[in-house]
C-alpha cells in the first residue's frame, strides 16, 4: 500500500508541475498580451508569436517530456508494464 501511495504522490506532483507550466503558457502570458505587443521578436510582435507558435511549441515539448517522466516514475516504483 505504501509503495503505491508513494507512487501516486509522485504522479500527482508531476501532474501539478506540468499543469503549472500549462497554466503559464495557456493563460498567464496571454493575459499580458497588450504589453507584449510592443516587444518585437524576429518581426513578430511577441503576443502574436506566443499565441501563434510559442505556446504550442512549449506544449509539444512538454508532452514528450511528461511521457518520459511518468514512465520513469512508474519504473522507479516497479508498477510499469512488462515489455512485450
Amino acid at each position, binding site marked *: 500500500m505504501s509503495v*503505491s501511495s508513494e*507512487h*501516486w504522490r509522485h*504522479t*500527482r506532483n*508531476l*501532474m501539478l508541475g*506540468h*499543469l503549472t507550466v*500549462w497554466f503559464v*503558457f*495557456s*493563460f498567464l502570458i*496571454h*493575459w*499580458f*498580451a*497588450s504589453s507584449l*505587443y510592443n516587444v*518585437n*521578436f*524576429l*518581426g*513578430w*510582435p511577441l*503576443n*502574436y*508569436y506566443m*499565441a*501563434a*507558435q510559442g*505556446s*504550442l*511549441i512549449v*506544449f*509539444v515539448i*512538454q*508532452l*514528450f517530456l*511528461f*511521457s518520459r517522466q*511518468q*514512465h520513469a516514475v*512508474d519504473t522507479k516504483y*516497479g*508498477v*510499469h*508494464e*512488462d515489455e*512485450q
Partner: protein
Amino acid sequence: MGLQWEGKSFIDNLPKIYGVYTGGFLVFFALMAIGEKMGMSAAAIGISFVAFTVVIYAFIGILSRTMAVDAYYVAGRSVPPVFNGMATAADWMSGASFVAMAGGIFMSGYPYLAFVVGWTGGYILVATLMAPYLRKFGCYTVPDFIGTRYGGKLTRFCAIVVLIVASFTYVTAQITASGTIAARAFLIPFEWGVYIGLAGILVCSMLGGMRAVTWTQVAQYIVLIIAYLVPIVWMSGAQGFGWFPQFQYGPAVERIIELEPMLGVGTAAAEQVPGLGVLTTLHAEPQAGALAAWQFVTLAFCMMVGTASLPHILMRYFTTPSVKAARNSVAWSLFFIFLLYFSAPALATLSKLSLMDPNLASSIFGKSIAEVEALSWVRNWGEVGLLAIRDSNGDGILQVNEFFLNPDIIVLATPEFAGLPYVISGLVAAGGLAAAMSTADGLLLAMANTLSHDLYYKILDPKAETRKRLLTARVLLIVIGLAGALVASMKLTGILGAVAWAFCFAMSGLFAPLVLGVWWKRANRQGAIAGMVFGLAAGWGYLLAVRGGMEPWLGLDHLRFGVVGVVVSFVAMIVVTLMFPAPDEETQRMVDEVRVPRGETIIGRS
C-alpha cells in the same frame, strides 16, 4: 487479399504501407499537374482529386471490415503510438480547423488565436489527467468508464446523453463541410453534396468500425497535411520569405502592421452585405483592456477543457497496446496537430499580405474596381455569393472596407488569388474533404458505439450476442448519419459556432465526472449524476438565455458557455458527493488499480 489488419507483421509493415501510399498520392499529384499543363480543365482536376482520395478511403474501409468486438470497438488495441497520433490528429482536425481557422485569423486577427492555443493546450489535460487512466480501465466507450466507475444504469445513461448532445452538434458541422466541398467539386446542389459526403463517410466506418476508421484516418491525415502545407510553402517562396515559412513569416506580420494604417484597416464599412464581412480588425494588436484579455483566456479555456471531454478523441486512446503507449500517443497526436496549427497563422498572414502589399502582383487594394472585378477568382467566388465588391465612396478604387468576403473561403481561395496553379486548389479541396470526413467518421462511431454498447447491450439487453450488438452498431451508424445529414441540409448554424458549442456541451457534462473519477477516490454515484445533470442543464440553459437576448455575464457569450457549465458541474458533483457516503471498498480498490499501469485492465479482468 493477403493483408491482415492486425498482428506483428502488419504492424511492422505499417511505415512501408503508408510510405507507398504517400508516394502514390504524390505521383497522382504530379500527374494532375502535368494534366493541367496539357490542358485538363479545372473541373476535371477537382473531380479527379476528390474521387481518387474517396475511393482510396473506401478501399481501406472495406478491406479492414471485421466481426470481432475488440477490433470493431477499439481496433484490437494494437495501434502503435505514432500511427494512433496521426489518426487522432485527423479525427481532431475537422472542417473547422482546416477550412475555417486560417480564415478566422485572417478576418479577426489576434483574438482568434485563442482557438489555436486552446485546441493544442487541451492535450496537456488529456495526457496528464485522463488518457492513460482510461486506457488502463480498458473501457470500450467513455460512458463505459463512467458507468463502471460510479456504477448504476442511470449514471451510464446520463453520460450517454451528454455524449450524444455534444457529438451530434459537432457532426452536423462536419457533414455540412464535406457537403460543401463535394458540392463544389462535383458541381451539384449542396443538399445532394451532403448525402454524397455522408455515403463516403459511412463506407469508411460501417464495415470495420474503429479498426477501419483508424487506418482510413491515418490515410486522411497524410492527405490533409500535404494539402495544407504545400500552398503555404509555395506562397512563401514566391513572396520571398523563404522555404520554411512557419519560422520566417515574422517580417510578413511586421509588413502588415506597417500597411494597415496606410490602407485604413479599421474603418467600418459604409454598406452591408448579408453573410459577408469586411476586414476591420488589426492583424496582431490585441484590443486593450481586461475584458479583451479575459475573453481570450476564457475562449482558450473552453476549447482546452472541451478537448479533454470530447468522447471521440478520448476513445482513440483506448486503441493503443499499453498505458505507456497511450501517453506517448497523446504526445504524437499533439505533434501532428501542431504541424497544421502553427501553419494556420502563417497561411492567414501570407494570404492577407498577398492581397495588401502593393509591391506584389496579387494585391488588390488601391487598384481600380474594374480591374479587380475582372480577376477570375473574384468572379468565381462572387458568383456563389461568398465574396462581393461595393464601391461605397464611388471613386472607382477598391478600399479595404469595400471588399466583402466570407472568411471560410480563405483557405480554399488562397491558391487562386496568390496565383498558384489550379492543381493546388484541387489538392486543397481533397485535404478539406479528408479533414471533414475523418472527424465525422470518429463522431458517428463514438455515437453508434455508445448506443450499441452502453444503451443497447449494457442497459437494455445484457444478454445480446456479439453478432447482434455489432449489427445494431451498424444500423445505428446509418440512422445517426442520416439524421445528421438531414439537420446539416437545413443549414441551421455555421461551421465554427456549432463546433464551439460541441466543446462547451462536452465540458459542461463530462469533464468533472471523468477527472474526479480518477483523481478523487471519494467521488460517488450520486455526485457524478448531479455533476452531469446540473452541468449540462446549466450550460444549456445559459446558452439559450444568451441566445434569447440576455446580457452575458462577464462577457461569457455563446462560444464560452462551457465556463458556466463546468463550474456548476464541479460544484454540484462535490457538494452532492459529500452529502452521500463514500463508494464501497471494491470501487475504491478499482480506483487504486486504475492509477498504476501494471496489471490487467479493470474491465478485461471481470
